[in-house]
């Protein structure tokens, strides 16, 4: 069977599986549609959360990003996992005890304010739409790359599949499809990683392999990597080049952003009990950690493979650079896609790959007769080319394609569902028609999901150029708007509605303006995006932390200057804090 046919077969089969699961677990009530009837087991919820969380970016781009960033890539590894500790210890059990359907609903009830609920809906929609547009684009690109179809057709196919299972299955449907998608993803990710690690280090476990000696006995992988990349003028792999302040703030922003993302929080509404919410967060992070501890191994091995392929001997010796004519097969394959390009600047027929932005090293390179870096590599191919570099059979490539599509679809479906739930439950029902029947609300929910899919598809199709920047924006807003008021709503009985509204708006406005001032999305950038211009040396990626602190401060100050919440609200907070009311207190009435 040809590789192309095999890919069609595996990807098509995975689609049938997802749709079949969705039909099998069709939503029959709003409870099914919003929170899967609260019947999901903690392990299944953990897997679904992991699939929900790990997007096309995690699957395709993260290892490549780490390969080129080295130590600096740790911000993503710690930032996108550490948030689950905050979520599990500070939010999930209490929100599960609350026991309703959406994040804005919690904010509305806790702060006793329809306005607070509406502001929360706005924050949620901004966060989720920025995210989902990127996912839909990802689906289109993966289709285009693996199936040789137009990006638009790929996008429409992806929309169609999500449409079927999100609209009909609701939360219940996507939960069980996400479990299947997790299995596809993790298999597709770890298998090539194991083979590559074994080839380079003779150790079959990636997490250990990248701390081991190279199979050729020339020393430890990371030490050799540090040595070679610094000789080529790059930053040392294990040290990185970002400032400590910035690394600290970006990591923190990603962590609290994670804990404030509505599509992640809502997953913990779907389990039966408070204790299930606690342990389910553990399973979720365990399943995420399997990929997140493999990624840095893949990153360092890929960087080593790439560097060692091109720089075959000591830096500066003319014959130590690979002759272009002798380049390996995978190099040719990806050259055809334009993701690797070679430009023989000094006309010696050999490939020179080095850091020509490093002025000190350029002088050294000149003395070697090098006239500039000759190789441009799209970082995404480091994961995509892995099976070919490792010489794995065609069906592994087919699984990588299915895994990448699964990663994008699962995240898109989760995001679309929180958007539709917020619109149907928190806007249409609570603002316009309080007496709507469950049946009608379910119909409205489905319509909202359908509209959201079309809108997301449109945004993904017509993606404005700034979208790569927008990821930072989604995390920044989640960290600065929703996280602080949810946390204070549980841990303080004194904060009130007016405080929360001022706090959310302060965090939202500050973070939006700061990111815009440097990155320019709503208006053109006002300052150059360089460390000298940043407030306290914090880059736009890390500014969500300051936004969150501002939100905390404003919420507390305004709340303490205005009147305390009603007794009913205080009772609600006490109700959230205990899984069950103690017997001795029940008798008091």
């Amino acid at each position, binding site marked *: 069977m040809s590789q192309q046919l095999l890919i069609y077969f595996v990807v098509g089969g995975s689609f049938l599986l997802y749709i079949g699961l969705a039909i099998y677990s069709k939503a029959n009530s709003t409870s099914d549609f919003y929170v899967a009837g609260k019947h999901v087991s903690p392990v299944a919820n953990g897997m679904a959360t992991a699939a929900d969380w790990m997007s096309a970016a995690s699957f395709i781009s993260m290892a490549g990003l*780490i390969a080129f960033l080295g*130590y600096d*890539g*740790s911000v993503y*590894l*710690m930032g996108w*996992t*550490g948030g*689950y*500790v*905050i979520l*599990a*210890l*500070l939010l999930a*059990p209490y929100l599960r005890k609350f026991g309703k359907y959406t994040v804005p609903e919690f904010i509305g009830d806790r702060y006793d304010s329809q306005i607070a609920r509406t502001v929360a809906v706005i924050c949620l929609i901004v966060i989720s739409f920025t995210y989902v547009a990127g996912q839909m684009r990802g689906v289109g690109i993966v289709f285009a790359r693996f199936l040789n179809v137009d990006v638009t057709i790929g996008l429409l196919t992806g929309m169609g599949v999500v449409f079927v299972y999100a609209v009909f299955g609701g939360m219940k449907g996507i939960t069980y499809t996400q479990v299947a998608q997790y299995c596809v993803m993790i298999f597709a990710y770890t298998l090539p990683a194991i083979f590559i690690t074994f080839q380079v280090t003779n150790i079959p476990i990636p*997490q250990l392999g*990248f*701390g*081991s*000696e190279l199979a050729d006995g020339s020393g*430890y*992988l*990371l*030490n050799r990597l540090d040595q070679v990349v610094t000789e080529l003028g790059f930053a040392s792999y*294990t*040290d990185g080049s970002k400032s*400590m302040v910035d*690394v*600290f703030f970006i*990591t*923190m922003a990603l962590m609290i952003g994670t804990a404030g993302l509505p599509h992640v929080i809502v997953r913990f509404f779907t389990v039966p*009990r*408070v*204790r299930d919410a*606690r*342990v389910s*967060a*553990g399973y979720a*992070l*365990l399943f995420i*950690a399997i990929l*997140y*501890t493999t990624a*840095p191994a893949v990153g360092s091995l890929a960087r080593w493979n790439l560097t060692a392929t091109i720089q075959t001997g000591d830096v500066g010796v003319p014959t130590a650079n690979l002759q272009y004519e002798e380049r390996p097969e995978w190099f040719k394959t990806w050259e055809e896609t334009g993701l690797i390009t070679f430009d023989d600047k000094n006309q010696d027929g050999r490939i020179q790959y080095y850091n020509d932005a490093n002025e000190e090293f350029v002088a050294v390179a000149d003395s070697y007769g090098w006239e500039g870096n000759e190789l441009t590599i799209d970082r995404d191919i480091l994961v995509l080319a892995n099976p070919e570099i490792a010489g794995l059979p065609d069906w592994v490539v087919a699984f990588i394609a299915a895994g990448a599509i699964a990663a994008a679809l699962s995240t898109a479906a989760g995001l679309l569902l929180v958007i539709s739930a917020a619109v149907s439950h928190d806007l249409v029902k609570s603002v316009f028609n309080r007496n709507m029947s469950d049946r009608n609300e379910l119909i409205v929910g489905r319509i909202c999901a359908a509209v959201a899919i079309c809108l997301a598809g449109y945004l993904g199709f017509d993606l404005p150029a700034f979208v790569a920047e927008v990821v930072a924006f989604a995390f920044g807003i989640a960290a600065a708007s929703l996280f602080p008021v949810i946390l204070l709503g549980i841990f303080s009985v004194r904060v009130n509605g007016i405080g929360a509204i001022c706090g959310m708006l302060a965090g939202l406005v500050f973070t939006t303006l700061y990111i815009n001032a440097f990155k320019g999305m709503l208006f053109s950038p006002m300052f150059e995006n360089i460390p000298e211009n940043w407030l306290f040396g914090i880059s736009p990626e890390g500014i969500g932390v300051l936004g969150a602190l501002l939100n905390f401060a404003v919420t507390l100050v305004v709340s303490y200057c205005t009147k305390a919440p009603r007794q009913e609200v205080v009772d609600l907070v*006490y109700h959230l*804090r*205990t*899984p*069950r*009311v*103690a*017997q*001795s*207190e029940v008798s008091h009435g």
Partner: protein
Amino acid sequence: MKHRQYWIANLRLVGILLSIWFLVSFGCGILFVDVLNQIQIGGFKLGFWFAQQGSIVVFVVLIFVYAVLANRLDRTHDVDENE
């Protein structure tokens, strides 16, 4: 009164676990990374290992430890879900 005791015990548990969370990630992985990088275990510089592996492993363990201890706390304060 009972609620208050339970809540203080809960805050203490969460506080201790979050201190560990902060220590391994922001402490070992970022603030003290240069000092820890002086130590090499196998092929890993220790600070780098905490930043790319160790912290994630500790995060997973922390959540499971929390789940077990919080469930135990519920039982000792008679607020566990018994259905």
